[in-house]
C-alpha cells in the first residue's frame, strides 16, 4: 500500500546543531505509528517538518507517493495533515464552534457545525458546540483538538504526547479513539514517552535518538526493557526499593480543609502522616485536589480548617512559605519553569535564592556572590546538571530534566527533613526521570519524609512506601507497598 506520508532522508540543522540527520519515517492509512525518543531526540523537529512549520535542509516530504512542499500550517491543513499539539492550541474565551471555525476558514458555520456533530457522533463522544472552551475539562479539550483537524479534512493525524495531560481512564479512552481513527482510514502518528502506549496501541514503532532513527520495529518484537534500551542507548530499568529504615512521624495533617471556589475542588478533611525515611505517594486523577494539597503543604494557601504539624516545630498550620522552609520543608513544584525557577535570571542566582533568604550568603545589605557562585558550581557538579555553559546563563535555557535537577539541587541544600515533590518527572524522558527518582530515594534513605504527588500511577507505584489516593478533594484510601495497581485505580475514580 502507498504510504499516506513519507519523510525521506530529511535533515535539519539549527545553527551548528544537527537536530535531524537523514531520517526516514512513513505512515500508512489505517495505521498507528508510534514515535519514541528522549527529549531532544528530534521527534518534535521531525513532526514540525511533517506539518510544514520547518522546511527540511535535505531530503523531501511525500504525500501518497508524490513529493510535495508544505508551506506553513494552513497549507498542511489543506493537504490533509492535522497536528494535535501537546499544549492545546485553543482559544479559551471562544466557544467550541468558534474554535473549529477559526481552524477551518472559508466555510459556512452551519455546515461546519453539522459536520462537527456528525464526526463527534461517529467517534463516539458528545460535544456541546456552544460551550466555552475554558469551561471544558482537559480530555474534552483534547477531543475538540482532534475534532478540529478532522473537520478540516485531515487524513494524516499527528498526536504529540496526547496522554501527557490525561489521567488513566481518559488516557485509555483516548487510545481507543486513536484506534477508531485508524480503523476509519486515517494515518495516525503517535508521539509519546509512554512505552505501554507504543507497545499496546500502535502497529509500528520508530525510535529516535540524537537526531537519528535508531530503529523501526513492530510492537510484537519488543518488550519494555528492550524498548527503553533502544530509546536511551543503555539499559535503564527502575525497580521498587523499599525504605531501609522508617522512623517516627515527621509531618502530620489533621482534618485539613480548603474551601473550593468555582472550578477548584478544595480539600475535605484530609488526614495523613508521613514518617522519617518514607516516601508517601499521593495518587489521583488530575484535578482532584492535588494542586490544592500542594499549596496547603507549601504554605501558599491557608487551610480553612484542620491543622498541620511538623515534628520538632509543632503546629505550622498558619505558617507561610518562608516559615515552612525554616521548619525544614523543601518543595519541588509542579511547573519548574513557572514556579521552580526564574527563567530570565542566571543559573547561579536561581540556585542561591533559598540560601540567600536563609542568610547563608551574607545579610540583607550584602550578598556574598563569590560564596554563592562557588556553592552553585559545586551543586551543579554534584547533581549532574548538564548544559550549563556559564553560571550566568539564563535558567530558561536549560532542558526540562536539567532544570528539574537544578531545582532539586537548590531544594536539597541544607538536607531538608520534609520534601514535597509534585509531579517531579512530568515531561521528562526516561533517563532524566530516573535521575530525579534516584534523588528522591536518596533523600528518603538519609531519613527525610518525602511526599510525592503524582498523576502518573507508575511513578507512584515505583517510589512509594505508602500510598494515599485523592478523589474529589478527599483522601479516600491508603495502601502499603507493594500495592495492587487495579485497587488503586478503582479508588482513584471513587465518587461520593
Amino acid at each position, binding site marked *: 500500500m502507498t504510504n499516506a506520508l513519507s519523510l525521506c532522508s530529511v535533515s535539519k540543522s539549527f545553527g551548528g546543531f544537527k*537536530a535531524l540527520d537523514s531520517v526516514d519515517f512513513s505512515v500508512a492509512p489505517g495505521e498507528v505509528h508510534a514515535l519514541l525518543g528522549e527529549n531532544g531526540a528530534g521527534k518534535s523537529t521531525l513532526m514540525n517538518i511533517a506539518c510544514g512549520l520547518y522546511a527540511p535542509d535535505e531530503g523531501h516530504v511525500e504525500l501518497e507517493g508524490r513529493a510535495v512542499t508544505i508551506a506553513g500550517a494552513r497549507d498542511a491543513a489543506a493537504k490533509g495533515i492535522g497536528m494535535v499539539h501537546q499544549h492545546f*492550541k485553543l482559544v479559551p474565551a471562544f466557544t467550541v464552534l*468558534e474554535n473549529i*471555525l*477559526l481552524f477551518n*476558514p472559508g466555510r459556512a458555520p452551519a455546515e461546519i457545525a453539522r459536520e462537527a456533530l456528525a464526526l463527534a457522533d461517529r467517534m463516539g463522544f458528545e460535544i456541546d458546540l456552544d460551550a466555552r472552551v475554558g469551561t471544558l475539562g482537559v480530555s474534552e479539550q483534547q477531543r475538540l483538538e482532534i475534532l478540529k483537524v478532522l473537520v478540516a479534512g485531515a487524513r494524516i493525524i499527528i498526536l504529540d504526547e496526547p496522554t501527557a495531560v490525561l489521567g488513566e481512564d481518559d488516557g485509555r479512552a483516548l487510545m481507543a479513539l486513536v484506534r477508531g481513527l485508524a480503523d476509519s482510514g486515517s494515518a495516525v502518528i503517535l508521539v509519546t514517552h509512554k512505552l505501554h502506549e507504543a507497545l499496546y496501541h500502535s502497529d509500528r514503532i520508530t525510535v529516535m535518538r540524537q537526531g537519528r532513527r535508531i530503529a523501526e520495529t513492530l510492537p510484537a518484537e519488543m518488550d519494555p526493557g528492550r524498548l527503553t534500551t533502544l530509546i536511551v542507548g543503555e539499559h535503564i530499568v527502575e525497580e521498587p526499593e523499599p525504605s531501609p529504615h522508617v522512623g517516627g512521624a515527621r509531618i502530620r495533617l489533621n482534618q485539613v480543609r480548603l474551601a473550593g471556589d468555582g472550578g477548584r475542588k478544595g480539600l475535605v478533611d484530609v488526614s495523613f502522616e508521613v514518617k522519617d525515611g518514607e516516601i508517601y505517594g499521593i495518587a489521583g486523577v488530575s484535578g482532584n485536589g492535588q494542586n490544592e494539597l500542594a499549596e496547603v503543604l507549601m504554605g501558599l494557601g491557608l487551610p480553612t480548617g484542620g491543622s498541620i504539624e511538623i515534628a520538632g516545630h509543632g503546629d505550622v498550620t498558619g505558617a507561610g512559605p518562608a516559615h515552612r522552609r525554616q521548619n525544614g520543608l523543601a518543595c519541588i513544584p509542579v511547573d519548574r519553569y513557572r514556579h521552580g525557577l526564574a527563567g530570565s535570571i542566571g543559573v547561579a542566582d536561581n540556585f542561591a535564592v533559598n540560601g540567600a533568604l536563609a542568610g547563608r550568603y551574607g545579610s540583607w545589605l550584602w550578598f556574598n556572590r563569590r560564596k554563592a557562585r562557588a556553592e552553585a558550581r559545586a551543586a551543579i557538579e554534584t547533581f549532574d546538571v548538564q548544559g550549563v555553559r556559564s553560571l550566568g546563563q539564563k535558567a530558561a535555557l536549560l532542558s526540562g530534566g536539567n532544570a528539574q535537577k537544578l531545582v532539586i539541587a537548590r531544594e536539597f541544600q541544607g538536607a531538608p527533613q520534609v520534601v514535597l515533590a509534585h509531579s517531579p518527572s512530568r515531561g521528562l524522558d526516561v533517563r532524566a526521570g530516573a535521575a530525579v527518582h534516584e534523588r528522591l530515594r536518596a533523600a528518603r534513605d538519609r531519613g527525610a519524609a518525602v511526599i510525592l504527588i503524582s498523576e502518573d500511577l507508575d511513578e507512584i507505584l515505583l517510589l512509594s512506601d505508602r500510598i494515599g489516593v485523592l478523589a474529589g478533594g478527599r483522601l479516600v484510601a491508603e495502601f502499603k507497598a507493594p500495592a495492587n495497581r487495579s485497587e488503586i485505580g478503582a479508588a482513584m475514580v471513587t465518587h461520593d
Partner: protein
Amino acid sequence: MSDLLLNWLINIPGFAAPFAIAALGLIITERAGVLNLAAEGFMLAGALAGVGLMIHGAPPLVALGGSVLAGMAMGLIFAIMAASFRINHVIAGLALVFFAEALTSYIASAERWTNKAISGLEPVFLGQDVIVYATPVLCALTVWMLNRTRFGLTIRAVGENPGAADAAGIDVTAIRFAAILIGAALIGLAGGYLTVAVSRIWVDSVVGGRGWIAIALVIFARWHPWRALLGAILFGCIEALIPRIAAAGFDVPRYFLQMTPYLATLAVMIWAAARGRDRWSQPAALGQHHIREERG
C-alpha cells in the same frame, strides 16, 4: 433653569461622540491583543490635520477625512513598532504620545495655525451634526465586524491566544497590523472631530487628555462596543456639565468633575476584580507579543 438643562442636553452628543469613536478604535486594536496607550497622540494628529485642512479651505468632511489619514499615519508608526518589531506596547505607545505632542505643536506654530478660528461642521438635524448620527452606526458596525465576520473572529483569536491563531495558519503580525491601522483611523477621526466640530480652533494640546479618558472608557466598558457607547454618553454628560455649572454660578470645583471619569473607571475595575477573574473580559493576550518557539 430649563434653559440650562436644554442647553446641557443639546451639548452632550458633541462631547460624547469623540469619546465613543476613539473608544471603538481602541477596542478594535486591543481586542487583537495590542495595548494602545497612544490614543492621545493619534487624536492630536487627527485634530491638527482637521484644522490645517480647514484653514486651507477644505470642506469639513474632507478635513475629517484628513484626520482619519493623519491618525492612520501615526498608527502606521505604532504598528511598525508594536506589531512588526515587537517593541513593548507600553513604551511604544507612551513614546508616540510625547512625540505627537511635540510634533503637532511644532507644525501648528510653523504653519501659524494656532488660535485661528475655523468655520466648522454644521448641525444637520436637532442641533447635531452628521458625525454624531454616524457614531451609533459605527458602533453597530464594530460589533458586527467583531462578532459576525471571519475577520473579527481572527482579531479576537489573535487577542485571546496568538499561539492558537498561529497554529490555525493566521498571520498574527498582519492581523495586529490591520487592527492597529483600523483603530488609528477611528481615533484620528475622533481627534479631528474635536477641532473641526467642537473647539473650531487649534491650541497646543487641544485634545486635553481625552485620549486617556478614552483608554479608561475602554476598561470601563470592559472592551465591549455598546457599553463603550453608553460610557461615552455618561462621560459626555459630565464634560458638558463642567462649563455650564460654572456659568450658572454653582460653586462646585471643576477639578472634582474632571476626575469623575477616572473615578468611574477605577470603580468599574474594582467592581470587576471583586466579582472574580472570569468576569473580567480583558483580552487574554493584551500587551503580549507572539514569538513562535524556535530552536537554536
